[in-house]
């Protein structure tokens, strides 16, 4: 198909912390160096922030560097962390408070802020637009343009107005080619183009497999008496330990009597009957958590996978004509449970690398190995390197011994122990056969602390234009039944936090997979956890997906 083209010096995919920081830094440097440099950012959400979901405790280190006067510019960093607590939930009603002394250093949050990352991104987008960055919300990048010389030349935006049966509707609008000297991929965890590029350019050949968690979060408004602005609570243990799974929870007290509460389930869990959603729902009933939520009202819900393999799982981030940054590559520091400042920094480094190249007369399309040098010389590398063993230790030894190891390594040796722990297992290969797994009897929702799945999805304000092609592609249409259902009792019914996958009985009495793509929250868990990697998440029509305010 002949497509219209638009050319920019740099095309950025994704308006999250990484992409927006890249854009801002690019334009700042262009202005400093009196360089003509055009920058655009594509964003699949209906607006910047609509698809952003994070805890979030925000470390301002990268922001201090990017926009030092962020306070004057009224960045939405409103609630400074005042108190830090860490708990091991040892049973449904007991908790052990980890004495502050024994908390691994990276988990301390002095000088950090509790934020809505979506609102931080909205604010960053305003700063970017002030610097003449063109931001296009509602325009997902559907495909990468790779030329005959195997160089990334840009991306193609989604075709709009194609019906479910593949026919063009009256309002059909073909996608456009956005051509850039360099393209920066900042799609966040498990970006669908990042995944393709990783395969195409074999970016992960020398890294450990990537690891993921599924974070499910709710925003609550709670009675004032129960609200302690600035209080940050982290922890692990129950209920995930009942099924031998790992993960962690958070509960942050923001401003306006709001708390953000969430549970991250490591996606290497092995029991196919685990439902991260229902684990989260019952987790909230733990007295340590419920004391804050009771009498409150839930105002938002969402879910997003996180990339947490860390240092050893980091793929090569550069390829001809492109750099992959942030969680798209996997720069999250899991020891700190924070990825925003590292994502921002990785984008800023990419911007510096690109400006350096272009101002030296580079015409684009090169493999910017300078990026690696900049990365290795930065605090970002030091931070990720020093917490390299954190995730593997927990995967290897569980939260108790692994946690103890982390305490010793981080607090006594500042991450400089001469050991490297590797985790070479792949998350999607961990599921046990259903015969070897125990079914889990989750309690029913009580409709005051816990809720049914669809009423939660409703609060995410997610929607997709109904008459469009399904954006969850099955490589093999039979696999969900012949393998997933037969061997694992269709785990996608449980790991999807939006009820997208359902096994239904057809007219002929056969069981089949029903995909309710309209509910999708773009969390990418199915793309990650499907045991045979049969599900591929592709971008739906622009503007589809959740509409998170304040998440």
């Amino acid at each position: 198909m002949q497509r219209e083209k638009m050319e920019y010096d740099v095309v950025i995919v994704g308006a999250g912390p990484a992409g927006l920081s890249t854009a801002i830094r690019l334009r700042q440097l262009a202005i400093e160096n009196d360089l003509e440099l055009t920058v655009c950012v594509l964003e699949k959400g209906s607006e910047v922030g609509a698809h952003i979901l994070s805890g979030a405790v925000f470390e301002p280190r990268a922001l201090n560097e990017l926009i030092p006067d962020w306070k004057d510019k009224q960045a939405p960093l409103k609630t400074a962390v005042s108190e830090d607590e860490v708990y091991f939930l040892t049973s449904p009603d007991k908790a052990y408070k980890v004495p502050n002394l024994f908390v691994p250093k990276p988990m301390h949050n002095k000088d950090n802020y509790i934020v809505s990352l979506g609102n931080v991104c909205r604010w960053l987008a305003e700063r970017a637009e002030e610097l003449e960055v063109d931001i296009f919300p509602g325009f997902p990048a559907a495909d990468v343009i790779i030329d005959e010389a195997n160089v990334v030349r840009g991306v193609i935006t989604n075709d709009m107005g194609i019906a479910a049966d593949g026919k063009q509707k009256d309002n059909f609008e073909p996608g456009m080619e956005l051509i850039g000297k360099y393209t920066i991929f900042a799609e966040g965890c498990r970006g669908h183009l990042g995944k393709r590029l990783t395969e195409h350019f074999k970016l992960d050949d020398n890294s450990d497999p990537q690891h993921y968690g599924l974070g499910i979060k709710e925003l609550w408004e709670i009675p004032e008496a129960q609200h302690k602005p600035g209080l940050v609570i982290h922890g692990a243990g129950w209920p995930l330990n009942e099924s031998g799974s790992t993960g962690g929870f958070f509960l942050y007290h923001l401003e306006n009597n709001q708390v953000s509460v969430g549970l991250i389930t490591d996606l290497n869990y092995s029991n196919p009957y685990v439902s991260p959603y229902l684990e989260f729902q019952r987790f909230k009933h733990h007295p340590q958590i419920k004391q804050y939520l009771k009498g409150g009202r839930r105002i938002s819900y969402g879910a997003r996978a996180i990339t947490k393999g860390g240092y050893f799982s980091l793929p090569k981030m550069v390829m001809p004509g492109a750099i992959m940054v942030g969680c798209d590559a996997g720069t999250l520091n899991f020891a700190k449970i924070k990825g925003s400042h590292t994502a921002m920094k990785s984008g800023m480094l990419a911007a510096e690398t690109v400006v350096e190249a272009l101002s030296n007369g580079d015409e684009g399309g090169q493999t910017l190995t300078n990026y690696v040098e900049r990365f290795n010389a930065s605090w970002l590398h030091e931070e990720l390197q020093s917490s390299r063993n954190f995730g593997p230790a927990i995967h290897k030894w569980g939260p108790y011994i692994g946690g103890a190891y982390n305490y010793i390594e981080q607090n006594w040796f500042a991450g400089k122990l001469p050991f490297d722990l590797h985790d070479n297992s792949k998350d999607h290969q961990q599921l046990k056969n259903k015969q070897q797994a125990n079914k889990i009897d989750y309690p029913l929702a009580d409709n005051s602390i816990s809720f049914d799945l669809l009423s939660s999805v409703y609060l995410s304000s997610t929607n997709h234009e109904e008459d469009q092609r399904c954006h969850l592609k099955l490589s093999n249409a039979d696999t969900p039944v012949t393998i997933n259902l037969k061997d694992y009792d269709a785990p996608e019914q449980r790991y999807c936090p939006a009820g997208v996958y359902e096994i239904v009985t057809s007219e002929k009495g056969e069981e089949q997979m029903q995909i309710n793509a309209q509910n999708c929250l773009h969390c990418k868990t199915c793309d990650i956890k499907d045991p045979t990697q049969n599900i591929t998440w592709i971008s739906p029509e622009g503007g589809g997906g959740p509409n998170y305010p304040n998440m």
Partner: protein
Amino acid sequence: MSVLVIADHNNSVLNVATLSTITAAGQLSGDVDVLVAGKNCQAVADSAAKISGVKRVLICDSDICEAQLAENIAPLVHQLAEKYSYVLSAATTTGKNLLPRIAALLDVAQISDIISIESEDTFKRPFYAGNVIATVQSTDSKKVITVRATAFSAAVSTDTAAPIEAIAAPVESALSKLVSEELTKSERPELTAADIVISGGRGLGNKENFKIIEALADCLGAAIGASRAAVDAGFVPNDFQVGQTGKIVAPKLYIAVGISGAIQHLAGMKDSQVIVAINKDADAPIFQATDYGIVGDLFKIVPELIEALNNA
């Protein structure tokens, strides 16, 4: 304190929505007049005169009023309104078309689609497709109001008739004229306008089985709806979908068959007057929203229901 109710009618029959409007009017004042503007509409005036609570009927029977064009009726009501504190109409397409035109002539705000009367100047009305309810107070001396008919009971007819007074026709505006009118003669009422809606869900299992929903709808003269799950599964086309992302319905009777009651669906039908659910799962959320429920196999219950209705 008197009320003028603008009758909604087709020159031969008074729309039942006007009966509910008269009930609302009665809550504001004991002094309720009804205006019947049309052509050859004496029968409408006669029936309006018998409605309980109506003090007087004004009839304007004229060629100019035949099509009840807002451009002609608004100046007529504007003149009459001088004597009234309230002008009310049902929130039908006729009422919604006409009343704002009158409000602007009177230089007052209109209060649309009220669902309750809190006091002489304070009303409740839905915002955001009924997702929130607003209580609004009018600061205008005259109040122009459209009334959501399903929120008020219908006033009843009595044996005594209020006096009927003829009034002079307005001047023809020449701004608009009726070309034609096409009333749908569909065997089934339109989903959003139906008095009874039967909706089917995933519980029906397949497209073929959806036919029993049609059969039940035929018995009751009902419209057919469906849950998003049933639409997604391909049992029925998209435009049958009731719910947050589909159509919002508020019939007198809503029967949900094989629908579990996802909140998206409930959002689209929760304003129905009476909700019935037939579902085999006693824990289905739909039962939290129903007035009457039957737990059991829909393939047994629905045919029984059809038979009982046919034999009645």
